[in-house]
């Protein structure tokens, strides 16, 4: 599929170049940029991208941003083949992809920056505990989804929740029945935080793991299944769980409830792993932070773009758009349209320095 889409994207990109040279070319920070910016990649960003497009259109009405949600892998290969100006991807450039980016972008290569953090909540349907927020340690969560803890009155759940009257009710763990990045991130959390219990690693298809439990199609399907069945528990995009309660998960000796700020800190507490460029901001997501105010279950998605573009107009467009997406306004726009968590100030400053490096190639 991705290869078949390249020609169309390439044509649009050519048009964009044409428009860009016609409209811009006066200076890098001049108001009134014009042209089309073409991106392709992760579908997880699609909702946020709608917010970014609309918000950026208010700042720069002359610029059109197009985004084709063809998937992370397809987005990276389209970008590396020169079919798009930037890629959206749930994983950063790999080392060999950075090598390829030297052909695509010139000697400075391409960089990845984490612009989209989507928290994943562990939602449950247990009316009998009322307004009490359940606390679950990583081992307990892993035990539930590995079908080892099967009743809500299990001593392990009771140990996490002293003083809470837990019902004698079967646990119905709900997972995604389709192939999903949400499953991959959730199981990556289980594998990192409770390796003794969760031995299946990070999986996108549930059948590759322990099996069991109830499967539902898509985020909305999971939420509907949890809502419909008393005793159910499942993981879903935190912005989509509605009025379902979400568990506080065990981190660094305490328990942390989901909040956008707490989820945003995950990037700060993760280690940077550069694939090549010093301006790259790829991270190895750390699911076991020491800081108990960091919520560890989130999907981190990147924007990947060149440090050098062949013409001034394109460099200006990329710089302006990426700069705005990383700004407070841009992160707020994504939060409004996709319920994402904002990146922290420290990360924003570091990413802004990287984006500032985008220039036009010499000659």
């Amino acid at each position: 599929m991705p290869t078949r889409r390249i020609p169309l994207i390439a044509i649009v990109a050519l048009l964009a170049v044409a428009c860009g040279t016609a409209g811009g070319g006066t200076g890098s920070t001049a108001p009134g940029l014009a042209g089309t910016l073409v991106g392709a990649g992760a579908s997880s960003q699609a909702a946020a991208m709608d917010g970014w497009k609309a918000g950026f259109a208010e700042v720069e009405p002359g610029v059109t941003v197009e985004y084709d949600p063809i998937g992370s892998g397809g987005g990276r290969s389209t970008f590396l083949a020169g079919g798009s100006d930037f890629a959206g991807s749930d994983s950063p450039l790999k080392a060999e992809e950075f090598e390829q980016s030297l052909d695509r972008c010139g000697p400075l290569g391409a960089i990845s920056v984490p612009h989209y953090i989507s928290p994943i909540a562990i939602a449950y349907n247990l009316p009998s505990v009322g307004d009490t927020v359940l606390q679950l340690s990583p081992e307990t969560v892993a035990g539930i989804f590995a079908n080892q803890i099967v009743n809500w009155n299990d001593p392990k759940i009771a140990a996490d929740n002293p003083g809470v009257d837990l019902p004698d009710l079967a646990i119905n763990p709900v997972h995604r029945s389709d192939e999903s990045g949400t499953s991959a991130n959730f199981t990556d959390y289980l594998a990192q935080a409770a390796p003794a219990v969760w031995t299946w690693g990070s999986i996108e298809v549930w059948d590759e793991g322990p099996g069991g439990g109830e499967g539902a199609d898509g985020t909305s399907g999971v939420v509907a299944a949890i809502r419909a069945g008393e005793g159910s528990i499942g993981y879903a995009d935190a912005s989509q769980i509605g009025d379902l309660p979400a568990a506080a998960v065990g981190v660094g000796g305490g328990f942390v409830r989901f909040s956008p700020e707490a989820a945003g800190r995950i990037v700060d507490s993760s280690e940077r792993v550069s694939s090549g460029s010093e301006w790259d901001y790829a991270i190895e997501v750390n699911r076991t932070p020491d800081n108990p105010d960091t919520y560890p279950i989130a999907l981190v998605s990147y924007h990947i773009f060149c440090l050098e573009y062949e013409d001034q107009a394109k460099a200006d467009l990329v710089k302006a758009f990426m700069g705005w997406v990383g700004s407070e306004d841009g992160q707020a726009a994504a939060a409004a349209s996709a319920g994402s968590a904002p990146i922290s100030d420290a990360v924003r400053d570091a990413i802004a320095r990287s984006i500032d490096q985008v220039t036009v190639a010499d000659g």
Partner: protein
Amino acid sequence: MTIEQSAREERQVRVSKVGDRVFLGLSRGAGVFILVTLAGVALFLFREALPALQADATEFRDSDTFLQYVGPLVFGTVLASVLAVVLAAPLAVAVALYLTHYAPKRLARTFGLFVDLLAAIPSVVFGLWGIAFLAPLLARHVYPVLHENFGWIPLFAGPVVPSGRSMLTAGIVLAVMILPLMTAISREAFSRTPRLHEEASLALGATRWEMIRQAVLPFGRSAVVSGTMLGLGRALGETMAVAMILSPADLFSVNLIGPENPNTIAANIALRFPEAQGLDVNRLLATGLVLFAVTLVVNLVARRIASGGAA
């Protein structure tokens, strides 16, 4: 005069022959087109499926051989469809008999319209209805009762899935979806029962029910069978409603009310295709080829039974 007349006749004959030839060509072309399309689909499926059929099990992330992969899916597909037909067939025959032999004429027409209307509802709407209304209702009031009283039958072994998204729910929704098709075919056949047969039966002193058993049912038998097979064919390929309702897992299970159900081929393709890459796409198409074959066999059997019954 006579020469002129015969000349005119000749011209007419010639003109009508041209019309015949054109129509013959058109209809033959349409027939050939259908065959070519069918062969093209089969060829495409086979070509795309081949890499997955030849690949080693270790090349897949779940390291299943193709038989291991497709086995539970074929089982789930057949189980869901047979369940739907078993539930729908008696109901369809009863509704058709009521419409043709019991209901007052005007009521029958309105009622028949509503049954046909069921066929016009898109399957995604049935899926939503199944998830939002039927499944929770069954999970709350029916499945626990089934499990408590008939739990010793493997079909109701449980545990009951609290949201109700089980094989039995999928079967019931599929039954509702194929009901109009099966009813329409049975109704058509029953209404064509020769009046003389019915009157002869009644004249011999048969009650209405005896008359139906003696005259109507034997006459409509082959239509009921072929309608059932057509319904089975539709249920085999139904995708959206099953993908939404069924809680799937990779296993064989006859437990109709639990959370772990073998998925159907069509629903599995719908769930996996959007994110599939490389060899996984080939494998999904290979399961499509299997579904194609299963449906073909069902239709051939239906045709055999239908024509055998009429002879």
